[in-house]
């Protein structure tokens, strides 16, 4: 997943410090107004996000591009589906 490092997100959503279910709920809100094809990047410290994010994107019909571990948090990349 090294090419993910270079993916440029259109929107960055910082949820660091929030725990389940807030990262998902905030992502759901963001995706409502996001145009198809745009990329949302979620920053999360919740270990549960590693499973929740891809599951949620799949359910919503969005494209989960992957995640990148940073020092102390993780960046999740989701492309809004059409």
């Amino acid at each position, binding site marked *: 997943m090294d090419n993910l490092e270079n993916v440029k997100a259109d929107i960055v959503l910082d949820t660091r410090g929030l725990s389940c279910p807030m990262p998902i709920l905030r992502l759901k809100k963001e995706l409502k107004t996001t145009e198809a094809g745009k990329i949302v990047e979620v920053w999360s*410290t919740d270990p549960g996000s590693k499973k929740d994010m891809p599951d949620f994107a799949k359910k919503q019909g969005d494209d989960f591009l992957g995640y990148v571990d940073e020092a102390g948090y993780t960046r999740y990349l989701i492309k809004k589906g059409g």
Partner: protein
Amino acid sequence: MEQTSLSSQIWKEIKRGYNFIFIKDMPLWVAGIGLGILAILIFLWRYPWGISSGYGNWGNQLYYYLGFGKLAGLKEAPLTPWIHPVSVMNIGMILGATGASMMKGQFSTYLAPTREYFKGFLGGALMGIGSTFANGCIEGGFYTAVGVFSMGGFMMMIGLALGSIVGVKYLIWEMLNWPVKIPTQKPMEDKKTPRIDWSKVYPYIGGGIYILICLSFYVYSAFDKTVVGGMAFFGLWVGFFMQRSRFCLQRTFRNPFMTGDYEMVKAVILSLIIYSAGSAVIKYGFFQPETHGIDHRFWLGSLIGGGIFGLGMVIAGACASSGLWRAGEGNTKVWLAIVGFCTVYPFFKNAVKTTALGPFLGKGVYVVDVLTWTWTPVFYVAFFLAWYLLAVYNEKTEKFVITF
């Protein structure tokens, strides 16, 4: 061709096994089966599985040693936390989760915004009150209650669903109108690189925890308390299954109203099929008395308690059991939820026990007394099927998902 020595081949296999058990993501259904079996073993060992009275024990220490023992109806010092069986099991669960998250490299403590700590405490306190009304938390009052054929479990389920709806509505309202601000954090580069790379050390600490607690049987046997040692052992593996799969009873009730997701519903149903079948054998075969574990306050207590508990768990972001494993993997908000739980539980427990509130809330009703062994299995099959179909229907139509 280079010949690999036998010992290196065996070592490779051992590493694969370790990876399979402790590192690879565990599906929820595997945990569902594991927990169902553990619940039966715990039931046979001595007590039906519960969690809240362990928190109660911790709270009792607080009341007693701060001089408020009277408020909790304590006449003498409570059992110490390392002797009280449910407390010991809870400690086993926390350590099981800590060990498992350390081995997987998931263990991390992070700070939450201040309001989240307040919500943790408040949610924990609500769960504490709800548990005293229902005479059990989501674990003892719902999961075990349904598993051992106590009517209260079904009533608490309705309460939990209603409470979750209110909780999810609150979270959505808060997000839209009064969002928690994320404090801007300094870039990590500013921090000094620590002398020890803990991520390399953690897996060894985690493994050590597992070995130590598996030895608890021997330690407690030396003090003639083998039963209590067993509780630590069972707690450890409950924590293992829960943390490894992120098994969260709260999610069972919350997510159908939040996103429509019903993965946990399936896992809980599977788990309860195993648990209830096992306890039917145990009860029918007289291995334990039929009414063992039938003490949930049916029906007002279970319903009201479930409602309060359901609201509390959504606000706290964890229930009684997932609170233990989340606390174990380093979630600091949940630590406050446990403090909140322990602070209110002894007072309300005593109030329910000694005032007219108790009889008002109801008493334990055994499903088999009402339906007989002829109809109980039929009822259970119909119940599981109906719950499953409702969850699938909701996932497809999002009929019950709260929109915003």
